């Protein structure tokens, strides 16, 4: 029996178990709220899990390193999940092959727009060079973007944050924006969501429409491929 509740807290707050549990519990609740609001874009589960856990860490004076010791088990799965995208790609291969031309052209247009627009806008906003470099790969999934950021000697943790922010904003904005453009082709809508907002956009696309989800997953994996080549090139050409 511990002599006081405080020492129990000291013990638990340093253990991976507590932070892994907190991550899963908070996400399970924000996901339940999202479901209860019939997947309203503003009830984005990642957004709300992020600030609730963040506020909890600040309130308890827990460092991110301590938190991550527990949360890394979830974070680790980003790599295997990227590999797992081979399966929806494989299962929808006939449909994918049938729309291969519009997909590849949209892939090139989208990836170039994603990288060039963020680099130019960031330079225009007068952001420091290392911030510009860290923002450049923001449209691809976190694991990949952090790898790109590392190879540029930028700040992978800032890249991770900008990836998540991009994903959340994309997931919130995609449905109202697409309704306004009048595009009803769910292949095109999903493809755009996955390209611009990676896994968070893909999760959103699956909530809206099955086909949109599949095309979003494809866009996300293809964009990871293209952006890995594109960012180093764009950075050499565009960043002073």
């Amino acid at each position, binding site marked *: 029996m511990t002599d006081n509740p405080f020492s129990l807290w000291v013990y638990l707050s340093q253990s991976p178990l507590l932070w892994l549990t907190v991550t899963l519990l908070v*996400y399970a609740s924000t996901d339940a709220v999202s479901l209860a609001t019939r997947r309203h874009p503003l009830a984005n589960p990642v957004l709300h899990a992020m600030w609730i856990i*963040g506020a909890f*860490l600040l309130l308890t004076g827990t460092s991110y390193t301590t938190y991550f010791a527990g949360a890394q088990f979830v974070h680790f799965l980003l790599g295997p999940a990227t*590999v*797992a*995208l081979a399966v929806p790609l494989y299962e929808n291969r006939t449909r994918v092959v049938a*729309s291969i031309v519009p997909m590849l052209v949209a892939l090139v247009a989208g990836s170039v727009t*994603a990288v060039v627009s963020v680099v130019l806008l960031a330079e225009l906003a007068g952001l420091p060079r290392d911030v510009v470099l860290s923002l450049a790969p923001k449209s691809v999934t976190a694991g990949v973007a952090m790898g790109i950021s590392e190879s540029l000697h930028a700040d992978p943790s800032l890249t991770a944050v900008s990836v998540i922010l991009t994903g959340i904003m994309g997931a919130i904005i995609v449905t109202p924006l697409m309704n306004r453009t009048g595009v009803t082709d769910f292949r095109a809508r999903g493809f755009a969501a996955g390209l611009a907002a990676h896994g968070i956009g893909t999760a959103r696309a699956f909530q809206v429409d099955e086909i949109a989800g599949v095309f979003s997953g494809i866009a996300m994996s293809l964009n990871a491929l293209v952006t890995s080549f594109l960012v180093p090139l764009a950075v050499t050409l565009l960043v002073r």
Partner: protein
Amino acid sequence: MLSSLSLILLCQLIGEAVVRGLGLPLPGPVLGLLLLLILLLARDRFVLLARGPLRNEGVEMASKGLLAHLSLLFVPAGVGVVQKLDLLASHGIAIVLVLALSVVATLLATVLTFRLVSRLLRQQDAR
């Protein structure tokens, strides 16, 4: 389930090893994705490969399980925002605006290109 997860990890491991070994400018898991895709396609052609996780939807089920809660996997990295509060205090508004404008531009460029090209193709087919 166990062998399916092992296969996914193995694809990633080979991907990482090849990328590191050859110094490719490409993330390991993306190469792993290509590897798994090639394996699945090869399985349909060569019966010999259809065993273990490549049989009875094994690796398919495991992958769908992983992808079912894809957005959860972004939470730990997202919480990293607590480390960047000083940077966000000085440049936060600019960063959020830049990212927001860029994501809108990217969404529009992608969806409009996709629709334009598929329309052009359909017109060509009609002729």
